[in-house]
């Protein structure tokens, strides 16, 4: 996969504060890259540097193997769709007028406003003023405005911030539908790790202005060798199963309400499962859970 945008040794200082420090990161064409980290870790600053809103104190930004100059940014921005974290828009404009405005500003086609409203599930609000929109509707409109110039590169800063689980699910469904129709490159920042782990191709973890780790989830999992969590539902408490687990190298073994849990290493997985299956008559159910991105994230931290 070819790299579309490359940040080379980027740093950004605000006075004595180092907001971003020596970050090198490639964004590959067509991928969905998650940028995760706690609040204040430098995610938004890094996104603004990617958009050319904030100038790096040092480092280079390379687009398709071409180092961006001041003049190139305007051209590059024609391909960018940006969704800031929180936008309330103009209360007295309708959904259609809002998208028409940003289409004109960004060089898109105002005629596509209604089609875009349909795409983001706001077809019933074409002539409704934004002042009466819910938070979820405003976020969908925010995604709509990011798409008004038919971008190739979409930058989403905490796109589901403040949304309830239903709104969050709907948002990602819309984003997924949009990506099905067009091969968009997406950079998505979030501090809600569990929310994006099944949606992203790669993840870059930020901590105190630096990238702590970057790669696919599998790469991060195997690189960190985090233990998997074994869940066993047993008919009656069987201390022999617990003993077996201990003997085979499982750790953190707990029993509560007919449920036995233990941590096992990836390397021991097959061997331990085979040993447990020899006592399958005393088991009701068994499941093995991968560490989620949150565990990877905190593992790194």
């Amino acid at each position, binding site marked *: 996969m070819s790299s579309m945008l490359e940040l080379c040794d980027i740093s950004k200082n605000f006075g004595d504060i180092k907001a971003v420090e020596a970050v090198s990161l490639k964004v590959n064409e067509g991928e969905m890259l998650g940028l995760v980290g706690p609040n204040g870790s430098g995610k938004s600053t890094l996104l*603004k540097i990617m*958009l*050319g*809103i*904030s*100038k790096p104190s040092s480092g280079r930004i390379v687009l398709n193997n071409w180092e961006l100059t001041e003049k190139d940014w*305007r*051209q590059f*921005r*024609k391909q*960018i769709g*940006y969704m*800031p*974290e*929180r*936008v*309330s*828009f*103009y209360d*007295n*404009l309708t959904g259609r007028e809002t998208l028409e*405005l*940003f289409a*004109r*500003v*960004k*060089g898109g086609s105002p005629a596509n406003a209604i089609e875009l409203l349909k795409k983001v599930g706001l077809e019933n609000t074409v002539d409704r003023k934004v002042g009466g929109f819910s938070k979820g509707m405003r976020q969908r409109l925010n995604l709509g*405005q990011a798409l008004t*110039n038919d971008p190739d590169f979409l*930058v989403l800063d905490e796109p589901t911030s403040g949304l309830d689980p239903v709104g969050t699910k709907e948002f990602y469904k819309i984003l997924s539908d949009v990506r099905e129709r067009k091969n968009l490159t997406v950079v998505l920042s979030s501090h809600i790790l569990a929310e994006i782990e099944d949606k992203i191709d790669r993840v870059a973890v930020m901590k105190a202005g630096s990238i702590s780790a970057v790669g696919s989830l599998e790469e991060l999992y195997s690189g960190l060798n985090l233990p998997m969590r074994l869940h066993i539902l047993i008919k009656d408490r069987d201390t022999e199963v617990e003993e077996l687990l201990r003997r085979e190298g499982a750790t953190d073994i707990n029993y509560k309400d007919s449920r036995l849990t233990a941590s096992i290493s990836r390397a021991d997985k097959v061997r331990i499962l085979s040993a447990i299956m020899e006592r399958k008559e005393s088991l009701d159910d068994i499941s093995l859970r991968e560490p989620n991105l949150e565990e990877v994230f905190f593992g790194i931290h």
Partner: protein
Amino acid sequence: MVFTDAMRAIARKELSDKLKSRWVLVIAAGFALFTLVISYFGGATSGVAGFRSMDATIASLTSLVTYFIPILALTLGGGIIADERDKGTLEIYLAAPVSVAELIAGKFIGLAIALILSTLAGLGVSGIVLLTETGMSAVSSYLIFMLNSTILGIIFLSVSFVVSILITERARVIAFMVFLWLFFTILYDLGLIGVLIITKGAIGEEIFSGLLMLNPVDVYRILNFLSIGELKVFLGLAAVELPAYMKMPVLWTISLLWVVLPLIMSYHFFKRRYLA
């Protein structure tokens, strides 16, 4: 710089806001009402109520406009950037293929048109009534008064953009706008009079007239009194003469500088503040 699609869209949005919210209509009606009241009762202190000569009316209206238009224009543009920042839309503009000059010019043009429409409509309606009552002979003086009043509004709109970029907290913006209004309409001239008194008039006419040019409200007053030939009414207190070269075209050029320079400052301050 050409009038780009982005600039046109931003300008249209600003103008449409003011038209939809009936701002233009209310301000125009207010202008018309105040000017007619001032025109009719302007001579009431001498015991006579009624429409007087157009020159006397313009002198009275000049006083009204020097207070009314600056505060109107300052509040119109004062929150323009803070509003965008609070709404989160400023970042969308910054990430769009639109230059800072286009953004500022678009907003300025939209608001300037709203201000021009309301000023011309308000003063135009009262002008028709006044000219009907006082005769058409002074129509050119009144048209120049309308033009000068419009320029004064645009000057303060331009100044408000600088404030809007430098100060982002709404409460502080309002406080600073009130201070600017007081400074230009009252305090500056009080200060000049104070300087004249302290120096016992030793300050030269060149310097004094130069200092007057540093206040757009004074430039506006001089322009109006020059057009009706009543400059002594304005300058009598100072007992000084304006230099001969200080004619209306020069004053209009100075007014134009008062529009352009704050906009150039806005451009640079914006880049330093939001694109650093």
